[in-house]
């Protein structure tokens, strides 16, 4: 007897028939449960939104007036015939895996996630389930992240070298999550930390909700670069090399992303330096996460889906590829977000 699956994959995104809601839908629907505030997960035009309390402020900041409700991590909620709860995904502050249970069958839609504790985001919490929906942005064995303190040491060393040579260091990173994580890794002893406006707005939202970030100076059009010798400027990748950046005079630019692990991409995208750091799980992170769920059925979206799915199937899981509609612009910003 075939019964309706707890979650199905539709034109609009992941759908739960028992609760009549969608998870991270990419077209306007009545009821949307959102894993986190990145543009490829939280889109405008939904009738109502449900996300963690920690994810909501950034979503409101990005999407403007929305009908939204917050939920605490671990708090249970009944929606129609489904039991729903949100659990930390470790991706960016407030990001969640969404657990959906109907009649004893448990599914988890994990959104984007990483296993390493960045000292900043609520750490990833494994959730037991029967069916697990995973990303595979870096689902190849060539992606293996070094410990965060090693990357922090590289970045700070580069910044100090720039400062000693009388150059401004420009570090490009996506505005929500990655940028704040990098800020928290910087050593303020080296010099002043400046930020681009697009990023400072997000900083303000996160500081308001109680996150601790180092002191930053908003690099407005009026700011005189000469007043901030030895500075590092954290900005969106698109601002690297722009007119705004050029008025800082002699400078080096770097880009921080998991893609920087590949020499070819690094040479194409990195400016002077590329630092390998990502808010997504690496190869061993993905495998550990999947093992820890105890799930037998794995649905793979985002990234190297074909290769990763084949590997899972050869190693005892029942895995399948779920086509996704929203990878394009993720690559645009240098990393899936």
């Amino acid at each position: 007897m075939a019964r309706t699956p707890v979650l199905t994959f539709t034109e609009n995104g992941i759908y739960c028939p028992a609760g009549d809601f969608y998870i991270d839908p990419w077209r306007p629907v009545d009821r949307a449960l959102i894993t986190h505030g990145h543009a490829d997960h939280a889109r405008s035009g939904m009738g109502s939104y449900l996300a963690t309390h920690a994810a909501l402020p950034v979503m409101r900041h990005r999407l403007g007036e929305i009908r939204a409700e917050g939920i605490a991590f671990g708090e249970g909620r009944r929606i129609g015939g489904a039991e729903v709860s949100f659990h930390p995904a470790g991706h960016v502050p407030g990001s969640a895996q969404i657990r959906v249970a109907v009649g004893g069958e448990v599914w988890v839609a994990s959104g984007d996630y990483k296993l390493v504790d960045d000292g900043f985001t609520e750490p990833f919490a494994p959730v037991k389930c029967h069916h697990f929906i995973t990303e595979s942005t870096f689902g190849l064995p060539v992606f293996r992240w070094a410990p965060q303190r090693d990357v922090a040491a590289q970045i700070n060393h580069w910044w100090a070298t720039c400062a000693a040579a009388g150059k401004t260091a420009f570090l490009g990173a996506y505005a929500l999550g990655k940028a704040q994580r990098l800020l928290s890794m910087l050593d303020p002893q080296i010099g002043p930390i400046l930020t681009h406006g697009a990023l400072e707005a997000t900083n303000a939202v996160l500081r308001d909700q109680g996150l601790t970030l180092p002191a930053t100076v908003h690099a407005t059009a009026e700011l005189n670069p000469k007043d901030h010798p030895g500075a590092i400027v954290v900005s969106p990748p698109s601002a690297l090399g722009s007119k705004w950046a050029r008025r800082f005079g002699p400078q080096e630019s770097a880009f921080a992303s998991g893609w920087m692990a590949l020499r070819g991409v690094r040479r194409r995208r990195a400016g002077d330096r590329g630092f390998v750091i990502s808010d997504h799980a690496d190869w061993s992170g993905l495998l550990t996460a999947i093992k820890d769920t105890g799930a037998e059925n794995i649905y793979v979206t985002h990234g190297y889906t074909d290769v990763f799915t084949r590997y899972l199937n050869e190693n005892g899981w029942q895995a399948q590829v779920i086509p996704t509609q929203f990878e394009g612009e993720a690559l645009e910003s240098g990393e899936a977000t």
Partner: protein
Amino acid sequence: MKRFAALFNTIDQSTRTNVKVAALADYFSDATDADRLWTIALFSGRRPRRAVTTTRLREWAAEEADIPLWLFEDSYAIVGDLAETIALVLPPNPSSDNRSLTHWITELRGLAEVAEPQRKAFVLAAWAALGGTERFLFNKLITGGFRVGISQKLMTRALARATGMPETELAHRLMGNWHPDDTTWHALIEAADASADASRPYPFYLAYGLEDGPESLGDPDHWRAEWKWDGIRGQLILRDGDYYVWSRGEELMTDRFPELARTIDHLPPGTVLDGELLVWLPGSDTPASFNALQARIGRKTVPKKLLAEAPVVLHAYDLLEWQGEDIRHHPFATRRALLEEACADLPADAPLRLSPQIPFGSWADLATHRAAARDAQAEGLMLKRADSPYLAGRKKGDWWKWKLDPLTIDAVMIYAQSGSGRRANLFTDFTFAVWNGNDLVPFTKAYSGLTDAEFRQITAWVRKNTLERFGPVRKVTPHHVFEIAFEGIQPSPRHKSGVALRFPRMKRWRQDKPLQEANTLDDLNEMLRQYG
């Protein structure tokens, strides 16, 4: 290897020429003789004799990484570099090794003599001892191919800075057949007699493309014109009773062109010619297509039948050495006059001919000749200033290529494949089709010509419009029309469309053009009739 890895990182990560040259010059000033000799060798495509096959390397790496071989191969396809793939799949590792570049090379050379289990043990131990860039470089020592964006020009500039010697002399010393196994830093760079090697070629002088017409070059009387052939640029060296043929890519190709041995009978020793290698059938007015030549380049030894079917003739356009004397500093007009004199008495069946000059009175006159280039099986014209010396490398000013505009056709994208290396996260390799009735017939692939922004845009589109997947290839909804530019067209029974294109690339993304207005197979056949 630490010092070498630091140099490599600086060069590899910087896009600025002055940073690269400064790093190299520093290295050449203070590295050991053995290390700097090997560094020049590695950056100019020389490498230690291969002691381990790449098949074994892949197997051992997959085993060490605890992944199936197919997964290693799929990863390699995406990374695009074997040495890098191996370095990445192995468990991350801080490097704690202090042995020098030359030390590692010497150890690798010793591997040829030992049995496979010892070879494997050595490689695994090296992988465990080396981390990051050093592990990658160790693999590169085995696989070869250090592509780091260091041209011969930058290397000689850095060497000049480190040694105080003139760049031109260094450029010449670095040419030719040397290998660190049988020379030293002193012999190669510093010793008085640099002409010891009879096969040593001169650095090629390379022309820039002329963007607009030639009017900006001034008085046409100061210029000489020749056909720009669609063959292989080659340097023929006659010294000490022997002959040597070098390609522009600095590859010694003597054995591939045995017919050129007869040039020894026609010209005296101490002669070096610059010219074009072309397949040219006896009695024909024009050279055969590049395809015919391709069959020859592919063979290290040439069967008799092929030698008869596709005979190669060198068309000489410049004389660099005459009677044992380097005459590159003389004006082109003088060198050319000597060349014509030297070639005056060649028999009709000699494997050597003078590449003709094209007389012209005005630039307009020359434009008429250029328009006829396709009939002569040429790609366009070469313009050379009459008083120019023969320089080394690509220099602006005295030599220009004035190529024909490419042929173009509007085609529909039907398959997409992701790129590798530089473009591993983008779809960049596309298959294009033309209409045949209501069917789309694939006829060419192309993977260059778009901007990174356009590649990102089309990548997003491909992901949303995949109809089917065959391994790495995705069949996509026929929707986008691209203008494909190419240099030539030939019949090809191997292709479904019956044609093969030369140098196809995407010239423009025709977002303005509806699908139905792409060209047809009939259009393609008409081009084949006209230009094939």
